[in-house]
């Protein structure tokens, strides 16, 4: 599969380039001390780790997003056969989109797009 090899080649080139930029820092610098490592909050010191059970305020939006993502998956092959299928294909996809758009309307009314 030459295309895959090409993708990996590009990835390798980009990866090597990035590694080169980082490797330029491997000269001997001063050691990193503990007071330097304190996360920046403007002068204070945080008392806990930042990693936490973060309240993702847009989690209900992501459910709607998944449904549209699945629709996108169906649209990929649909796009290829669209012209030969003609108006029927457009009507079918239109119905699909309309049903999902009702989902957007519902979500909007329920405040899914606000920061909950």
């Amino acid at each position, binding site marked *: 599969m030459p295309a895959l090899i090409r993708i990996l080649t590009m990835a390798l080139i980009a990866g090597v380039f990035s590694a080169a930029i980082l490797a330029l820092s491997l000269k001997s610098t001063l050691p990193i001390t503990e007071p330097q490592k304190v996360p920046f909050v403007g002068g204070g010191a945080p008392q806990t780790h930042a990693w936490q059970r973060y*309240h993702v305020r847009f989690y209900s939006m992501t459910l709607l997003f998944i449904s549209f993502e699945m629709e996108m998956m169906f649209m990929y092959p649909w796009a290829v056969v669209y012209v030969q299928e003609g108006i029927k294909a457009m009507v079918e996809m239109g119905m699909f989109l309309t049903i999902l758009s009702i989902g957007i309307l519902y979500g909007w009314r329920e405040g899914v797009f606000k920061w909950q």
Partner: protein
Amino acid sequence: MAMRWLSRLAAADAVPVFPVVGENGLAAAENLFLDPRLRPVPSPRHARVLLVLGETGQTLNRQLRRLHDQLSHPRATLWCDAVPDPDFGRATESSDTADAVVEAYRSMFAGAMDTEPDIHPNEPPNEWRGKGTNGQGGDGMMGGTPYGRPMAMTDDDLRDGLQLDAYSATFGPFLPAFPPGLALDITLQGDSIQAVSVSHPPFRQETDHSRTGSLRNLARLLRVLGVPALAARFIAAARKLEDGGTIDLDVLARAFDWSGAMHIIPSDLGSFGGEGRDVRSRVRAWLNIARGRQEPAPLGQPALSFVDLVKGLEWYEAVIVLNSFDNNALRNLCPVENTDDQTEEAPQ
């Protein structure tokens, strides 16, 4: 050899400066950064020079020292219009601050000046091996103080009753997005503010209530809104007005409109209750004052306390609200409790 060439190239760059603004230092800082040889950076990790402009006071000494240690090497500290701390940095005259900063930066890369060492000892924040046989710290899995920092614990949420982790920290007096000197003890869940209390009020700045003051207030808000280039234009206009020149305010107002700044601020944000007391109306008032169409008026009796104004907002909205007041109004709004730092936890 390559390192020397790299250092020489680096020495010709604009100096990344983290500004620590103290009392009456904000206008000087803004004017200073109009110089193309300096550029202000939002985080001390990005900075080579820590520049203190204006008196920060003894109570914030600990925070300033902690901030100093967070810069990456090579670093230098310069004090301008402030009494320097004997442990680090040098004083500099206010007339040639930019030159002194550039000088310090270049001499660091030329090897003529050493980078500044840490002030604090090289010790982790909590000792290794808390209580318990395995150093887990206390009774069972929770409790006690493990090595380094503990994880955040759950708490009830304001808005929807989920019990997820609450992150508490004092968001410091020297955060560039806040008005200088304002330190808030904030408890965040996600990025919404659950609880806030003022730990240190903002520093007093010489507020000029006339057109230049409004231009500077607008510039500060624009920088928060993500258009620093336009903010620099406003500051340049303000300085030109102060020096006695004339500026074309229509051009500035049009640029302000094109950036969409007025429309993107949500209506009814940071509202005191009642008509015309939210962020949009304050910004509109600043624009009118800048154009000379309106006289500056004091804020009036706030119907809400500061805490109620900010609580429940998302972080960005809260920062916009904080930057929508001018210095006098914000100082009047902040309750002046907890101004001593004895309430700060002792082990770092």
